[in-house]
Structures are given as C-alpha cells and as structure tokens.
C-alpha cells in the first residue's frame, strides 16, 4: 500500500470563521464517507485565503503563496494500492463538481510526530 496526498484546490476554503453548517455540509459528509472507507489516514480543512500569510526569502506578505483563482483549501492523506485506486477516491471530492479540483501526489515519507 502507498500513501497519497490529495490537495484540494478551490476558490476559497469552505471552513471559515463565519461558515454555516450548510457551507461545510458537502465537505464534512465526504470526509465522513472517506473515514468509513478506511482509506483515510489524515485530513485537514484550511481557513480561507484571507488568513494566509506567505514567506518568500526574508519577505513576509499577506495572502497565499500564489495569488491564483484557486488555492489549497484543504488536504488529506489516503492509503491506496496504486494510482488508479487513489484517483478513484480523490475524484469523489465535492470540489471537483464545484469548479475546483484536486491534485493527487504520492507521499515520499513522513507522518505524525509522536509526542513523548
């Protein structure tokens, strides 16, 4: 089994300080389905682009690293036997039907740090 990172790209993150349950429902439902599938190892929703801060060299600037129509709105790590299986799961993300998309990339290594 291999691990794949799924980076979720959207106009903005659904989980903002003022988000309503209706805003986050499709994404929360999808996360629950993933969790039940057993493929999910970790998942994180990020806050909107307004809360992003970028560091380039010594410079600190407001906003995402790349000012683009879509930014990383969240990410999760899934376990799958191969790329086809990973893609089959990733394409179910509701963002793919909302004008955004996901990037699927194999994980080279890493994982949660154990705290003593």
């Amino acid at each position, binding site marked *: 089994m291999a691990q794949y990172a799924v980076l979720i790209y959207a106009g903005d993150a659904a989980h903002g300080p003022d988000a309503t349950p209706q805003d986050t429902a499709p994404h929360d439902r999808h996360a629950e389905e993933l969790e039940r599938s057993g493929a999910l190892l970790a998942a994180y929703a990020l806050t909107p682009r307004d809360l992003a801060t970028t560091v380039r060299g010594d410079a600190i600037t407001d906003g995402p690293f790349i000012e683009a129509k879509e930014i990383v709105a969240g990410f999760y790590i899934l376990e799958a*036997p191969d*790329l*086809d*299986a990973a893609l*089959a799961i990733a394409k179910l993300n509701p963002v793919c039907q909302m004008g955004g998309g996901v990037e699927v*990339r*194999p994980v080279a290594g890493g994982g949660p740090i154990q705290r003593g």
Partner: protein
Amino acid sequence: MIEEAVAEAHRRGWALVLAATMRVTNDLDLAEECVQEAYAAALQSWARDGVPDQPLAWLTTTARRRAMDAIRRERTLRSKLPLLLEPEATVEDTVMDHPPAEDHDDEIPDERLRLIFTCCHPALAQEAQVALTLRLVCGIPTPDVARAFLVTEPTMAARITRAKKKVSGARIPFRVPHGAELPDRLRGVLAVVHLLFTAGHTAPSGADLVRADLVDRALHLARMLRELMPDEPEAAGLLALLLVTDARRATRVDAAGRLVRLPDQDRALWDRAAMAEAHDLIVAGLRDGRIGRYALQAAIASLYAEAPSYAETDFAQIVQLYDTLLKIWPSPVVALNRAVPLAMVAGPEVALAEISQLDLPGYQYLPAVRADLLRQLGRDAEAREAYTQALALTTNEAEREFLTQQVDG
C-alpha cells in the same frame, strides 16, 4: 536467415514478450532489459540449434527466466522501481502455472492490453504516452522514436525516462481498466494511436508528406487493439478509419513529391483490399447500432473513397454523417470538414457563411478551405490572400509547395 527470423519475431512479438515479462518483474526497466537480452540470445541460440517451433514462447521463457534470476540477485531493484500488479500468483506460480504460448493462450493477449493501457495512462502527458507507446509497445529504439517526432535523442530519452519514473513513482498499475473506467481510458488509448497516425499521414514538418513508419506503427496498434477488444465498436471504428485513409497513400503525392488533391488522385491505384476491410468493419459497426466518432469518420472517408469519381461522391449523405458526428462531437474541426461536402450540395456561398463563425486560431486548414471556397466563387484576390494565410501556418514542405502554387498561379 537467423537475423530475419529474429527480426520477424521482434516485429510480431515484442509487445507480447515484454508484457508477459512485466508480469514477472513488476519493473518496466528490468522487463525491457531482459527482453532485449532474450532477443540477443536468440541470435546465437537459433544459429546453433535452429529456429524453434514456437519462437515467441522461446523468447518469453528466456526473458522471464532472466528476469527471475535478476530478481533473486537484486531484491532491492524491485523496491527501487515497483510496478504494481493486482493481487495474484507469486512469480514462481506465474511461470509454472501458465507456460507461455502463442495466440491461443487467453492470458497473453491481455498482457499486451495491460501494457498499452499503462503506456497511455491519463496521468502521463499525451506526448509521453505516445513516446512510451512507441518505445514499449512497438519496441522502437529511442533514437528512432526521437527521429519520428523530430526531437534530439537526449530530449526523447529524457522524456521516456521521466515517463517511466512517473509510472513507477506514482504507482500507475499494470492493468486493464474495467467497468465504468473503460470507456474514458479506451478513448485515451485510441486518441494516442490516432495522433500517431495523423503525425505520419501528414508529417508536421519536413520534406515528405507521409511518414510511412509512423503510419504503419499506428495501423499495427489499431489492429492489435481491435483483436484484443473485439467487442469495442470504437476500436473497430479507428481501425476502419486508418485503413480507408491510408488506402490512398500511393496517390497523395506525385512522382516529384508534389501534393495531389483528392479529386485529382488516380483511384485505380488505391488499396482496394484495405478499403474493403474498412467497409466490412463500418457495416458491422452500423449493424450494432453503437456508432462512435471514429466509425462515423471512417464511414465519411469510405464514402469519399468508394465513389467511382470525385464528382459522383454522395456529398449529401456525407453531410448527413457530419451532422450526426457533430451531435456527439461538437468540434470546430468537424464543422470545418463538413463545409467541403456542404459546398458541393448547397453551394460555396452557404459553406463560406458556415465557416466564417468558426474559431480555429492557428489551424492551417481553416484559411485553406476558405481560400478554396473563395476561388470557387470567383473571388480570386481574396482567395490568394487566404492561401497566403494558410501558407504562413503550414510547415510540411509538400503542403507548402502546393499552397505556394495557389498564391503564385
């Protein structure tokens, strides 16, 4: 004699032997290396012992044995470049339980299908898909693949290496997609074969109109796909399209290498056997009722080809077929191609109005068709201007010479 037997086995069985060996190695590079060694070993062994009754079985067994030996010697190689297989028999079981055989073994054709679908996986850029297909499915050496696409050998080597690394690093599975996945994936495979054919049929650049080596490879792949997937109508449709299009190869340029337009080609020299085969495939497809874009294009090309003369072509039926094609594939290129028979049915003025709405920037055939329609309408100055625009977009020498004559003449 021995060299010819090995060359024939290479031409006929490279993909089969490589695909069968990949089942053992789980490793693209190792499989390829072992197959190459098996073919090299054949030169010596067959010279000493004679050509075996089943050459491909001999080659497959030899390659797979070398692969197993290599795996035992270097277990770490597998971890460096893993290629996933779906859960099944171990290496030993695979070799012992399914001795390689030609043709009648159900497993062997599926191996080649896995190879093709792996090379044409949508996770790879299409140019990588094409390069990998030529290299691995057709067994063409990298320098020849580079020449085929007019890039330097180092550039093509890097492209192929990068593609292989993506296959192993991203764990692209060595499998045939099934169920809901298959239609989309097959479309991608057929698109690669069609692109290969198109690049050969009218070379993007250079002095020759036709790149016969690419055309022949595309036909070989289309035939292989048709044989491996007999129930897929679009695999049959693509083969029919390539057959009927290539049937005119002998007449597309004259003895001096100048472009000859369809109405002026000598129909007696067309490949009637290829046209008949295409016709049978088209009729069978129509009988099925499941008609796709390749089959429709093949039917259109067949109507052009089967008419006793250009003037006697059934242009009305061709327009109807284009209308059907546009419904399932609303492409401006299809709409442009439709304008040619439309001019014969409804007049060049109607066709000219149709193509004026098309958005095809940089597509050389748009100004070329417009120029021809303007010429038919007697608007020679405008036609010359349009031919000049087409000339600016054209890179193939044979086509450039034709367009230059229209501008000057």
